[in-house]
């Protein structure tokens, strides 16, 4: 008896050890390539450390001076607002279109034809590098570019529209690009979520006489919530780190008048002068903002979900 017990024990112990072996590579790589740089960013943010020409200045310990400097001398709050605005301008149309497409594609009653084709096509823009996509828009919408020539030749406008010299247009272009690049991806994620819902629930609703709107609000949305929150969070984190599209489109300036300068573009401005101290401080702030927002969104959205499932 006791012999058998120890046998079992030994076996289970050796299994769990294998488990650790299997997850070890991830933690090893995470520690080296993510955790260590993260901690060193915090460390760096307390130093004055930059290069002017070939002369290195610092590192000198400054305490919280870099943080004070960011809040008093830079307009970080403006860049944060720009970033959030650009994200919202892209996310609202994106989630609307994606939800609609996801519901249509996965609806058993509609049976759309050529689904595979459309799914591939809407995903395509994501395959293009953001930089080239941005470059393309820059060329298309420049003062003497094709869009202006076409509009002039069909007499819609008489003077070329200077898209990239106008705040509204620049922001719209950036959001449009992000929308085009990401709505396919979001559609596929949401579709996976909808297809994970038990089909019998939809059938039951249909038998009970629920219309499409009621099915969507009462069945699809509540059961899709975890995936929806996942999409919202990843998009928000991605949105807060928005960089490549506006960087290329505005040549790194966030023009006009820095109204399309995002947080990461601001960070990049410091990295260009190898100002690791200030850049570190900006990174730490972005880290806390992203972390804080993610936490709040997750708690608010998921508390409703878990309450509901508990009630059931």
């Amino acid at each position, binding site marked *: 008896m006791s012999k058998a017990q120890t046998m079992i024990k030994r076996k289970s112990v050796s299994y769990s050890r294998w488990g650790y072996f299997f997850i070890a590579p991830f933690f090893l790589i995470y520690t080296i390539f993510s955790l260590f740089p993260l901690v060193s960013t915090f460390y760096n943010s307390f130093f004055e450390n930059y290069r002017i020409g070939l002369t290195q200045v610092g590192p000198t310990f400054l305490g919280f001076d870099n943080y004070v400097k960011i809040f008093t001398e830079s307009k970080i709050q403006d860049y944060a607002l720009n970033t959030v605005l650009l994200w919202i301008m892209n996310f609202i149309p994106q989630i609307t279109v994606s939800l609609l497409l996801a519901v249509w594609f996965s609806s058993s009653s509609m049976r759309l034809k050529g689904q595979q084709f459309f799914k591939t096509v809407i995903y395509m823009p994501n395959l293009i590098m953001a930089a080239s996509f941005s470059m393309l828009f820059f060329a298309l919408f420049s003062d003497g570019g094709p869009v202006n020539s076409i509009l002039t030749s069909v007499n819609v406008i008489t003077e070329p529209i200077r898209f990239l010299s106008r705040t509204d247009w620049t922001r719209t272009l950036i959001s449009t690009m992000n929308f085009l690049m990401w709505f396919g991806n979001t559609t596929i994620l949401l579709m996976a979520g909808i297809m994970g819902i038990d089909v019998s629930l939809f059938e039951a609703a249909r038998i009970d006489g629920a219309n499409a709107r009621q099915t969507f609000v009462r069945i699809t949305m509540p059961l899709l919530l975890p995936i929806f929150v996942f999409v919202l969070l990843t998009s928000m984190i991605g949105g807060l780190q928005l960089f490549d599209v506006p960087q290329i489109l505005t040549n790194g300036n966030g*023009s006009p008048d820095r109204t399309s300068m995002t947080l990461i573009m601001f960070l990049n401005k410091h990295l260009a002068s190898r*100002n690791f101290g200030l850049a570190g401080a900006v990174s730490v702030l972005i880290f806390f903002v992203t972390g804080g927002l993610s936490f709040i969104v997750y708690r608010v959205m998921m508390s409703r979900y878990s309450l509901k499932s508990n009630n059931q």
Partner: protein
Amino acid sequence: MKRFLVALMVLAVMSSAVGLFAAPKATNDGKVLTIYVWNDEFQTRFKDYFEKAGLVPAGVTVNFVVTPNQNNAYQDKLDEALLAQDKATGADKIDIFLVEADYALKYVNTPSTLDVIKDVGLGSKDVSQMYKYTKDIMTDSKGVLKGVSWQACPGGLIYRRSIAKAILGTDDPAKVQAALSSWDKFDAIAAKAKAKGYFMVSGYDDDYRVFSDNAKSAWVDKAGKIVIDPSIMKWIDQTKTYTDKGYNNKASLWSAESWQGAGKDGKVFSYFGPGWFIDFCLAPNSKADQKGPNEVGNGSYGDWAFCKGPQGFSWGGTWLCAAAGTDNVDLVKAVMKKLTCDTETLTTIAKEKGDFTNNAAAMAAVAKSDYKNSFLGGQNHVAFFLDSAKSINRGNMSIYDQGMTEEIQKAAKDYFDGKVTKDKALENFYTAILEKYPNLKK
């Protein structure tokens, strides 16, 4: 099979180990000539006048490392490489790097550049015909010459002949110059051009260099404070007026729109620039067919002429520096001697490329010769440059000039576009500069 695999693995491990340990020993010192540049201007001159002359020794490969200038990208890349120069081997070791006037000073007073006379071995006679200012800029605080150039960069006004005829009734450089000899006259002609449907200048930054080169103070004073010279403010005010009155085409320098203005159907009357601007920038962009011949009828080629313009100025310039730690000193010397000191080569460059080269004797000879610049409709423009080249004084340079120039142009653009007030534009300029150069003060 298994044994074969094992043998293969052992072989692979051994060869990689050999590779690891043997690589540093078998350095190919002197086998690669590495040159850091930001465009192909020097590259073509090197190919046409050094490589084609058979001066590259057998077994030596030339490695051009090209990084665009904009946003200090070239400087940053160069700085990284120079700081790692001691550890670099073979192709990674820089032999020659090029610097531009906007940041030349950054490298002059550092140990990264070699003494052109003592270390590289050029004779003082070799550099005697170079224009004084090109040597002044590259002379460090101890009086040591740290770099040489093949060009001198006095600038002038390059105007379109057909438009000059339409506005002024003449395209003769002397008469056009008389009509445009001051800024007041320039403004008056700009109004005339506008009335006839032409743009006096292409856009915002075209005459920036005229004003910045005539600034009385450097961008940064001794205490590290940023100084905006009244001459720069004059440029801002003038450009704002021109924009509001429609005298310019609202293009930014180097943009596609700016060059379109010089094309076949372009409406831009004039551009400001030195010799390299004519042959390296304007001429290629004036051609409708890029691969077509350099002759009248191909776009606006040949429909241009040159005069001094309302105010003399100089713009840019490219110097060759020998990198400390080069493994190719003799070849570096040969390149410098052939491309910057040799009177014959410099005469050929001037005649074939339209460049104003850095050799007073050669330029005086070309000015007197029957040389005709085909892009400028057969004009011998070299004569115009002779006096101004001698009077160039670049005492106000700083190591920050490129950053200052780029940022003031970007910030002022929002003001010209009517997006922000002048004060806000200047504030944005300060913000951008302090991000780029955290050691400076507002």
